[in-house]
Structure formats: structure tokens, C-alpha cells
């Protein structure tokens, strides 16, 4: 691709795209760091069915640090484009900018990868056998698709497919909505004879939810935020509600105009937060208010991007008391109850 055509793409997105192409993850961080969450879980690498963890949760602490830095810059005179370019330069020099930001704005990484560990616990409780490719897990490249780099996306998709096949993968259980969407609906568009069966974690859990004893440790009002790609793109709208309703102690508070297929985006869709960080934050506050108005004490969603956005939005809007949890966490907590 020549530089001329890339001129029309905002720099924030080319930064993410370059990371996928060269490092196989959206932040350009090391793969070892990404897979550390599963070290003690003893998941086999070779299996018919695998759990596909995706970049979002595995690198979310880095992503959050990077975004908070970018937002600060976006509001300042420097503008976002410069740091994004600097970050690209760091990467070229072999420096790991996300790692640096991570140390700068360090927070517990356990909290960020907790949904992944919990999803594994839940799936195991259902009696399912599955593996995890760990540091060999390829990037689905969905960001390339949404950036408009279709050729790069197709190339990456074919490479990813080959990697998955080389580990003997036949079925995938996805957890990040955009990875699941890419693997289920976008890959078949660029791979002839695509034969992987892709399902989302929530579909699998919903199938078994009636046979499970689920009880949340306390009585709570919960609002469910539909991630755009899970709800509108993948059509998984009833399943998470079925799961939540099966949990004793949980009262589901749905918003009237803004849930299910009408759910409002958290403000982070399609790489938006990398191009318009400040506006993205404003949109996250708007969505946070809609959810808070339901009277919910916990906001449940299942997308690392949405979680990050909603946490920011709720804090900015002054709803510090409302917790944001992944559906996998909620189900795992209800198993113990």
C-alpha cells in the first residue's frame, strides 16, 4: 500500500492497524504478556474446540492506560495525532509504548483479565472440553476491516485461519464481540471453504442456563448494555437476558428506547475512541446516564471496549457507586453463590 492512500485514514487507526500487522495484537504489546492470565489454568493448546480470548481483554489494562493518555492529549494543545505518531515511532524502534504507559498508569491487571478466567470457569462447569492457544493465538484483525484496510484484513484472515487449522481447531468459542463477529461473519467472505464453527460464550451459556443453579451473592438491580457487535451484528440479544433472568437475586432493568437492537453505542465503536477520544468520552457519559437512570446498581455488558467506556462514563457522570461487570463475571459469581 502506498502512503498516499493512507493519507485519508486518521493516524490513530493506522497505529492500531500497524500493530496488528506487525505484532498480531492491537497494541503492539508482547504476546507473552497477553496470555499470562491463563498460565495456571492448564488449558491444552491443541483441541477441537478452543476458547478465543482476543486482544480486548488480554491487553485491556494497556489499552485503558493508552486511551487515558490519548484523551488527555486530545484535550490539550498537542492534539492526538502527534502521540499516535510518536507511538508508531516507538514501535518501529522496538520500544513497547503500551508497556510504558501501563507502568505509568498501572492498575491491577487481574481485574482486566478476570472475565477471561471467569469464562473459563463457567465453561468448565458446563462440562465442556476446550483449549486455548495462548501466545500462539492470532489476531482476528477486525480493526483492519473497520479501518477500511480490506486487503490487509483478508491477508490477515487467511493467515489466522491457517494458524487455527494448524492447531487442529474445528470449533471456536469467542468472548470479544468484534473477534466473534469477524471469525463468524467476516472470515467466510474472504476464505474459500471456511469451515470453523463459531459461537459466542453467551450462546453456549444460555443453552444450559435452565439446567444450572445460579444465585448471585446478594439481591441487585442490573442493567444490561448490549455491545453493538454482539446485539445488532451477531443478533445475540435474548441470550444474555435469558442468562441474567435465570440468576436468583438479579432484577433486570431494561431501558425503554435504548436496549436490545435499539441499544445506544458506548461511544467506542469502530475505532472511534482512537480518532475522537474526547468526543468518545462524551458519548460514554451519555450512555452511562441512560443506564444509571434505570436505577441499576450493576451494569452488565460483555465487551472489553464497552467496559472501559462505561467505567469512564459512569465515573465522569458521577455514578461512582455503579459497578461495571462482564456477564462472565456475573455468572461465575453466581456459581459460587
Amino acid at each position, binding site marked *: 500500500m502506498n502512503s498516499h492512500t493512507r493519507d485519508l485514514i486518521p493516524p490513530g487507526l493506522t497505529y492500531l492497524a500497524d500493530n496488528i500487522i506487525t505484532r498480531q495484537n492491537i497494541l503492539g504489546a508482547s504476546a507473552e504478556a497477553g496470555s499470562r492470565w491463563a498460565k495456571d489454568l492448564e488449558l491444552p493448546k491443541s483441541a477441537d474446540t478452543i476458547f478465543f480470548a482476543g486482544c480486548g481483554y488480554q491487553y485491556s489494562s494497556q489499552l485503558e492506560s493508552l486511551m487515558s493518555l490519548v484523551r488527555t492529549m486530545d484535550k490539550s494543545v498537542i492534539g492526538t495525532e502527534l502521540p499516535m505518531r510518536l507511538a508508531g515511532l516507538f514501535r518501529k524502534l522496538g520500544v513497547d509504548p503500551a508497556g510504558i504507559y501501563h507502568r505509568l498508569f498501572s492498575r491491577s491487571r487481574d481485574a482486566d483479565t478476570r472475565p477471561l478466567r471467569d469464562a473459563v470457569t463457567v465453561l468448565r462447569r458446563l462440562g465442556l472440553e476446550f483449549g486455548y492457544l495462548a501466545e500462539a493465538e492470532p489476531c482476528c484483525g477486525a480493526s483492519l476491516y473497520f479501518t477500511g484496510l*480490506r486487503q490487509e484484513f483478508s491477508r490477515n484472515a487467511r493467515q489466522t485461519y491457517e494458524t487455527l487449522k494448524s492447531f487442529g481447531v474445528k470449533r471456536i468459542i469467542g468472548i470479544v464481540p468484534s473477534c466473534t463477529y469477524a471469525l463468524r461473519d467476516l472470515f467466510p467472505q474472504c476464505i474459500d471453504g471456511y469451515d470453523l464453527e463459531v459461537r459466542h460464550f453467551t450462546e453456549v451459556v444460555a443453552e444450559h442456563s435452565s439446567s444450572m443453579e445460579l444465585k448471585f451473592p446478594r439481591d441487585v438491580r442490573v442493567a444490561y448494555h448490549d455491545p*453493538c457487535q454482539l446485539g*445488532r451484528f451477531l443478533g445475540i440479544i435474548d441470550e444474555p437476558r435469558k442468562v441474567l433472568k435465570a440468576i436468583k437475586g438479579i432484577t433486570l432493568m431494561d431501558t425503554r428506547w435504548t436496549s436490545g437492537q435499539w441499544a445506544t*453505542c458506548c461511544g467506542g465503536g*469502530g475505532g472511534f475512541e482512537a480518532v475522537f477520544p474526547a468526543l468518545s468520552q*462524551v*458519548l460514554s457519559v451519555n450512555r452511562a446516564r441512560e443506564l444509571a437512570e434505570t436505577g441499576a446498581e450493576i451494569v452488565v455488558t460483555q465487551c472489553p471496549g464497552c467496559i472501559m467506556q462505561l467505567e469512564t462514563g459512569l465515573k465522569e457522570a458521577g455514578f461512582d457507586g455503579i459497578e461495571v461487570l462482564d456477564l462472565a463475571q456475573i455468572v461465575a459469581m453466581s456459581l459460587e453463590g
Partner: protein
Amino acid sequence: MSEFKAYKKKIMAAANDDRIHTALSRAIKSYRANTDKALKKFPHTVKMAEEVRQIKEKAIPQMEALAKQAAEVIEEHNGKAYIARTAEEALTIITDLVGSDRLIVKGKSMTGEEIHVREHLEKLGNEVYETDLGEFIIQKLGSPPMHILSPAIHVPHEEVARLFSQVMGKDFPPDTEITTLVAAAREFLRDKYFRADIGMSGANVVSADTGTLFMIENEGNVRLATGAPPVHIALVGMEKLVPTLGDAFKVAEVTWRYANYDIPSYVSLVSGPSKTGDIEKVTTYGAHGPRDFHVIFMDAGRTELARHPVLRQALYCLRCGGCLYECPVFAMTAGHFGDSYFASVGAVWAAMVTGDREKAAAIAYTCLTCGRCKVRCPMQIDGPEMITELRKFLAEGE
């Protein structure tokens, strides 16, 4: 990237403008409630929308032939019809018809906005009055329209009062009642309709078999502007053509229903100049309405866009404006998220019709690709699909 930077600055200024959010959040609430009510009252609309999608799918690939067919019928009935290949051609035709030093009353037209017809006529030395209240307000403010149906959606009534005080040379305090402001505009524009040399309009849909223009409105300004002056000039984008009169009625009904009206006050159907045969059966033109009726069917990139397998969806757009009320970005930025047209359709228009790739890129990358617009759209236009396709088109140059 400099144009993108300037655009981003504009977007952020809008996002920080509380007037926009206040006006939009009220508008969104009432749009959703009104549309919900209108669709419950006329539940057949949803099925009819599916039918209209099929009508558009059939009409768009043959719009050139439909334009020729409509032009022939209009000419047979003593109207004049023109096919304009480009925006420049359309402006030349209008220049030749209008000339200068004329008084023109205008109905709101997105196609007119697309080729900046008002500015063009003013530059030629004509006096042009926008007659749609919202359009009148933004004309006097010197601001671009912020919504396809409610161009002044971002202007609160206190500001309208201030503006009218300047324009009409009469004092309107900030707390002037809205009814008083509406009456003032009526009073101000009243004699312009009857003094005007020319009335201009667009059309919501046109049937090719009868050459009939459908104009949907509530204020009554389009009736006056296209009925009182001796000349009526209509500028119509070719995507507005459908094969039959029956098709056109369906398109019209679906359009107004999703534009949040159960029933609009006026739908004007115009197929030719005004005429009478009441004296000795001698057909004479210009009885009470216009003597001259001109229709310009404009291509300006539309037939090329119709050949694109994904982006052609933009041509199915009925301009009901429903998608805009569902867009989280539009709720904060109004029409700044767009050019002449807004959001995803606006991005496609900028790239393929007006041909400004930098502007198209700026709009395309402002989209969240969240897809709520598609849920609302009566034509099921897939916003995210068009936007990702357009980003590919812009990034890979194909």
C-alpha cells in the same frame, strides 16, 4: 490531514455546544414518541416500507430511463423538462431560466442545497427567500442546515427572537411566544409569494408514467411558492423517480410516516402548468397557477453511484431523517457530522456525488458503525456496511 483537523475542531465545538444537545435531546424524544404513535395508528406502514424498498431496488438501476420517460410526459403536457448530467449543467439551466434581478420564493430542497442553488441565484443578482420556516431562519443566520427535515433544529426560540428583531426591524424580546414568531414569519413572507417572479421547489418522489411531482409538507409554504408565482422551477435528483403513480403514493406515505407524521397537512401533486379551457374550450395556460412549469432531473454522479454494489443503497434513502435521531454522534454534533447530507448517506454523497474525498473520509471516520440507524431505516439501509465499504474505497482507492 489539515482538512480533517479543521473538521475535527468543528465537530468538537459542536459537541461542546449545549444548545445543540438541548435541542436535539428534545427532538429525539418527540421523534421517537411520534413515530411510535404514527406506526401504531397505521401498522401497514412497516410492510409497505418493505414494498418501497423493492420499488427503489427496481427503480434505481433504470433511473435514467425513468427520467427520460417522465420528461416526455411533462413535455406532452406543456411543461418543460431537462436532464442535467452534472451540477454545473443544472446550474446553467437554472441561470438561463432565471437570469437576474428576479424575486424568487423557494421551498426547502436537499438537492438544491447539494448544488448551492440559493447562493448561486443570489450571486446572479436575484432576491431569494427561503419560505420553509427552519430554512428561512438558517438563511437569515447564514448557517448551513443541521438536519434534512428540520434545518434549524439547533436554534432555540430565544435566538430566533433575536434574529427576527434584526431581520424585520421590529423588537421581539427573548421570551416572545413561539406562535408570535411563526406569525411574524408568515406576515413577513406573505407578499413575497405574490410579488415573486419565480417559485422554486424540489420533490419527494416523482412518478415516471405521469410525470407527477409529489411534495410533502406541513407549513403550506410549498403550496404557495409553487402555486402563486407565474413560473415554477423544480430541481429533482434522479434517485427520486419511480415507475408508476401507484409506486409514488407508497413512497410518499412511507416517507412521511418515518419522518414522524401520521398524516402531513399537505401533499401537492403537480404534473404540469396551470391551464383552463373554460372559455370556448380553448386551452389557455397560466390560469391561477404558474404558466411555466420546468423540471430539471439531475444526475450529478447518481447513475455512477447506482452501479456500485454496496454504496448504491444510499440512493434508496427517502430523506425521512429517522436515522439521524438514532445516531449518538448526530445527537451531539447535529449537521456538522455531514456535508449537504448527513451521517452515512452524507459520507457516500460526499465521496460519490460531490466527489470530495477528504470530506468523505472525515465523515466516514466519524461514524461509530454502531448500526442503530439501520434498525430505524424504513429502507433497511446498512449504515455500517456502507461506511466500512467507503473506508475501503478511500483507503485502497477502489
